């Protein structure tokens, strides 16, 4: 058996509330494994313990009970971080640094230097479309730009595992579609991804496996297809189908397949997302206008 990228065993986390007797149970007896190469979505309502779980997996806070591992190494130890890139939720970076300097700083922390460092930073700035803003201070970045620099920062040491806490929160649809594509591209390179997001549409598009947390308890876990496919239904979408054809199909169904039933027939609409992308980005960028978020 291969070592799982992430192993969480009987993890619990209790936060004491200062000056009170009460305690908050953020995570309760959570066990799960993420296999290498998978994209795993951690879902759940606000306050269900997703971010807490991620922070424990990264060794930023210590568990009250249980144990977490990254590629077989205890994640409370610093050396396990060599292979992980992390994007926290609502990240803020050092406001007084430019985009370029920010990436340079994180690259240094990962042991890069010289030409290799400059190449990597340049490549990542291009990847997240922040080349134009590379010499601007982060204090002037918009939320989506911060999120993208955060993603670049997470990718800086070519990690084997990416942990993304709401990577598309506050990002516009195009940026969010790009981040989605980026995650898919990472997956194709064999990078394991653990993410949490409230945009279920996106999660559905990219995740292989999901776990649903509710008040710190893992209530469902499994392969996405198994969890949501409706085995006994089939969807068909026609183009230019005359009403006569549809009538004929109905007749055929009634005559030969009495057990089948037509549940719904409607004109599909384009998704709002697709429509939004069409009207905003199909437009050519006016001359001299710099591209920004």
């Amino acid at each position, binding site marked *: 058996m291969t070592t799982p990228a992430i192993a969480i065993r009987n993890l619990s986390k209790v936060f004491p509330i200062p000056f009170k007797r009460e305690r908050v149970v953020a995570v309760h007896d959570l066990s799960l494994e993420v296999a290498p190469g998978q994209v795993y979505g951690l879902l759940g309502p606000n306050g269900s313990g997703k971010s807490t779980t991620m*922070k424990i997996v*990264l*060794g*930023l*806070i*210590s568990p009250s009970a249980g144990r977490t591992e990254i590629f077989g190494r205890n994640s409370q130890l*610093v*050396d396990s*971080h*060599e*292979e*992980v*890139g*992390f*994007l*926290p939720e*609502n*990240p*803020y*970076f*050092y406001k*007084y*640094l430019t985009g370029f*300097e920010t990436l340079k*700083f*994180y690259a*240094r*922390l*990962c*042991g890069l*230097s010289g030409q290799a460092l400059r190449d990597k930073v340049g*490549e990542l700035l291009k*990847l997240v479309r922040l080349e134009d803003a590379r010499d601007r201070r982060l204090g002037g970045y918009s939320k989506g730009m911060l999120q993208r620099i*955060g993603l670049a*920062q997470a990718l800086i*040491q*070519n990690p*084997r595992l990416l*942990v993304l806490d709401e990577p598309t929160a506050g990002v516009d649809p195009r940026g969010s579609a*790009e981040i989605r*594509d*980026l995650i*898919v*591209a*990472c997956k194709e*390179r*064999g990078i394991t991804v653990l993410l949490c997001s409230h945009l279920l549409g996106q999660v559905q598009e990219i995740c292989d496996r999901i776990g649903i947390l509710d008040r710190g308890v893992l209530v469902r876990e499994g392969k996405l297809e198994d969890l949501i496919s409706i085995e006994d239904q089939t969807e068909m979408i026609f183009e230019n189908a005359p009403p006569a054809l549809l009538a004929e199909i109905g007749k055929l169904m009634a005559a030969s397949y009495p057990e089948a039933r037509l549940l719904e027939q409607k004109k599909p609409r384009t998704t709002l997302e697709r429509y939004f992308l069409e009207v905003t980005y199909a437009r050519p960028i006016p001359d001299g206008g710099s591209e920004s978020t």
Partner: protein
Amino acid sequence: MIPAISEDAPAFPTAYPRHRFFSPARVRALAANTFTELVRLKIFYFLLIFALLLITSSAILIQLSFQDQFQMLKDVSLGAMSIFTSLLAILATAGLLPKDIEDRTLYTVLAKPVSRLEYLVGKLLGVYLLLLVSVVLMGILFFVMLSWRVHYVTSEIRAAGGSAEATQQQIDLLRATAYNPNLWSGGILIYVKACLLASATLFVSTFASSTIFTIIIMVAVYFIGNMQATARDYWQVPSIAGQAGWLIKAFLAFVSLVFPDLQAFNLLDEIVVGTSVGFWLLWKTVGLGVLYSLIYLSAAFFVFSDKEL
């Protein structure tokens, strides 16, 4: 469009190079970053105030006899340098940790292969560098001021006339009082004291609930640290020590353990007067400062390594 990811990314190595517990390169990156942060917060503007102080005071001092004049100028300058650097050390350090925690930049830093010790050392070295640059800049300002005064007074002596020999004697005396080599010792002590205060501030900020709290504590430490030697001396007078119960002794021992003896760094008075500070006394004091800094750093690491972020 699927963005391309570079092809030259290494295939996953099967064995990773051993992680180094303490890497100078990472510490350097953290220190440089801290220094940049502080510089871009425009902290060096306080040097303008320092310069203003020097210029005003030397303008006032012109009325004094030249010996008194240089005495006062050195007194004021070194005193101001000492207070400014101490203040800078406390104020610059107090906000570093809370800000990183609040902005969650700490998460992104510690999620990299950076140990908490490296983080603390990096922050501290960044502040040390800032303090060094400030002391040097203030020293240069001070020196320029001093040379200008010396130049001015020299030309006055020359203009006054008198025998060539007497004039030369006067000028030599003037030079000797103005530039005494102990000023170097003064600069070093000011710097070491500030580094000590920065380390103590970092330690306090690992458990303090707010930046203001840290600053208040540190101002208290500053005053107690400056007074504790006096208190200790008082209780060591035999007639009084006889009356002091063990409680007071224990208390004083505790105070001198927790609060640095800042008075030890106040050799400035002697320096200004021109008494030479012995080589050993200087290095003993520097050693004391380094020792205190190390103790505070260890204490900071002890608290910070178990801190929930």
